[in-house]
């Protein structure tokens, strides 16, 4: 059963990802990305990472897709519905396949035996986040604050400055 769900979700993940990189319509690319990200959330559920699945749906499926849609809308992506690729795309495909040719065999050869299959409890994640990972957690909040202020300053229109 787990195998069936995993294969189904893997097909959705890779299909959505391929949709992002081959489609000619920028809005379709964003929707394909949404399919891929939600399927990745399902894969987290197969891995018993319920909290990560929740975070994935909320942040990626909610926030990031909306922000990307705003980017498409504000840059009038719909005025140019046919997007074009670089001229070097065959070279890019070749380089990507070569990278896969290195990556996949290295995973395949150095197989690691799974030693457990239980789920990590939400309590444990919370405890670890605020003890072992407390400093990175605070730094992450600072990073978000700085990114927010920076985004506002960069995107502010010129008329207000004068």
């Amino acid at each position: 059963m787990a195998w069936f769900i995993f294969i189904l979700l893997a097909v959705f993940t890779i299909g959505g990802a391929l949709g992002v990189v081959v489609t000619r319509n920028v809005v379709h690319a964003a929707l394909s990305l949404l399919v891929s990200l939600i399927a990745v959330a399902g894969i987290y559920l197969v891995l018993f990472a319920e909290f990560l699945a929740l975070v994935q749906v909320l942040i990626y499926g909610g926030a990031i897709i909306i922000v990307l849609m705003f980017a498409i809308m504000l840059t009038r992506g719909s005025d140019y519905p046919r997007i074009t690729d670089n001229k070097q795309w065959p070279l890019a495909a070749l380089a990507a396949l070569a990278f896969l040719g290195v990556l996949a065999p290295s995973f395949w050869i150095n197989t690691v035996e799974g030693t457990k299959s239980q789920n990590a409890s939400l309590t444990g994640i919370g405890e670890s986040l605020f003890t072992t990972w407390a400093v990175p957690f605070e730094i992450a909040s600072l990073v978000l604050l700085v990114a927010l202020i920076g985004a506002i300053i960069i995107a502010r229109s010129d008329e207000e400055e004068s």
Partner: protein
Amino acid sequence: MVDLVWFQLLSAVLFVIGLYGVMARRSAVLIIMSIELMLNAVNINLIAAASHMEGIGKFSDFDGQLIAIFIITVAAAEVGLALAIILRMFRNKSTVNVDEINLMKW
């Protein structure tokens, strides 16, 4: 239970697709989307390792999940900033194609 190696292969394929997108696409928005695919591939890898293996030393079973949470945080910050930069780019040069932003190219 699905073996760890299948999750790793899935993440490798997803990463490579994202890599191709970064190299082949011209629109900056689509490059951001491809970067998101690559970050998700890394997250799948981390979470698969976290839920298949015991913790070692001072690291507990689910520290891979916590690193994935930080990656998602950084991805959210990155997308917000990238949107601002793309908007500024569009306002100054009226294009989002990265090969037309060649002012500083030698």
